[in-house]
């Protein structure tokens, strides 16, 4: 007799795409708001972006239950940090914390694909990009999630980040202006939505700069 029962699987893939671009004095971070499972759209308005501190914002896709648990752990850890140090965590500090938190579950990982972006201590834009078990790298731009395979090569082509092999080390931030970066991100998502069924519905964009934080939305295809 054939087994007609899918046995228990602790993971699901709820899709979604995250992109971040850092500039000299700003940073843009964006993600779509679709949440799906298989061929079902569960909801069209679920935010994948979380502001963890004044100057660090996390966008995550993958398995939503793990993503939410991860966000909650980071939020709680950040509260403790604030109690102990009387200040907000910096973005590079949050980056290290995220890495440690992911690696802590190395053998039962959070199925979460993260981009952490913000401003560093000098006010320069920074982007940190991760795998599910915590290895990470500071870059000038990154894409993660279901549409990353469509977006990442496009960003590579457009932004031509300096080779990490260059000596002396070159700054990884992109040469774009803030509004150019926002436009680029919008284009990326409009394109990814055409081919990736897990990306769509609405795009949420956060822009961090010296003035603070700004949020804007753009409608995406809903099919």
């Amino acid at each position, binding site marked *: *007799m054939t*087994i*007609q*029962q*899918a*046995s*228990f*699987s*602790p*993971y*699901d893939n*709820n899709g979604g795409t995250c992109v971040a671009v850092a500039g000299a004095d700003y940073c843009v971070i964006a993600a779509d708001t679709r*949440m799906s*499972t*298989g061929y*079902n759209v*569960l*909801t069209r*308005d*679920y935010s994948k972006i979380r502001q963890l501190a004044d100057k660090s914002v996390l966008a995550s896709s993958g*398995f*939503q*239950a793990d993503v*939410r*648990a991860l966000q909650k752990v980071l939020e709680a850890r950040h509260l403790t940090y604030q109690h102990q140090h009387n200040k907000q965590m910096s973005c590079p500090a949050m980056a290290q914390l995220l890495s440690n938190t992911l690696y802590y579950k190395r053998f*039962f990982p959070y199925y979460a694909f993260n981009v952490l972006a913000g401003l560093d201590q000098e006010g320069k834009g920074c982007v940190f990009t991760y795998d599910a078990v915590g290895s990470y790298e500071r870059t000038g731009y990154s894409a993660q999630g279901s549409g990353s395979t469509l977006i990442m090569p496009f960003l590579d082509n457009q932004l031509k980040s300096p080779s990490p092999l260059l000596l002396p080390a070159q700054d990884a931030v992109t040469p774009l202006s803030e509004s150019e970066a926002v436009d680029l991100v919008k284009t990326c998502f409009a394109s990814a939505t055409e081919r990736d069924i897990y990306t769509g519905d609405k795009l949420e964009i956060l822009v961090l700069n010296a003035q603070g934080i700004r949020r804007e939305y753009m409608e995406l295809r809903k099919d």
Partner: protein
Amino acid sequence: MMMESPASAPVENSLLASPDSAIQRTKTPYVTGTSVIGLKYKDGILMVADMGGSYGSTIRYKSVQRIEKVGKHSLIGASGEISDFQEILRYLDDLVLNDNMWDDGNSLGPKDIHNYLVRVMYNRRNKFNPLWNNLILGGVKNGQKYLGTVNMIGVHYEDNHVATGFGNHLARPILRDEWREDLSFEEGVKILEKCMRVLLYRDRSAVNKLQIAKITEDDVQIYPPYALKTVWNLAAFQNPSASAPGSW
């Protein structure tokens, strides 16, 4: 869609059940309920579920209540393993009793209960011992309507309308078309009945005995069960193979 097709044969999974393990876990559900649907309307939340309890492909029970009141401000609806749902109700009873015992004017709202359930479901999946359900939680507190859902591995979200199982395929497209913020009670019930009728025709585990529940700021009602009017004498129903010729 794991839930909609309970097994007739137990599945051996080495990761979940090592032969020497004495621990019992739900690897596959036994008696299951099918879709539940919830939506927000003008004054609160409406929910509907039928009363079938399936044992594999047998409809074993025909009068299982799958919507219950939780505390003062919330309703819970469940599909999936009925025994796990009843266990969840016991957890919630403890939680609400404890909350009432403080007697201090604070009370758990639908958002708090939904979050609690998400934590419970996710913790159980972390232990590879899931509660085999898709839950819907709705309620109103301080004029704030709330409608959310969580599944057996902890995936959760809020929306203006939610559905589990087959409801996700068959009811939500209808809801996306017809849902409005200012739906009246009568309109809401009408939409839910439309959804349930579609499910009744197309979901083999659905039974024609359903319960509607409503919750508003100051009222909770789980209405007595009733049946939908159905039409089965369509030509295609009477001779289904006429339009699908085959060798047999």
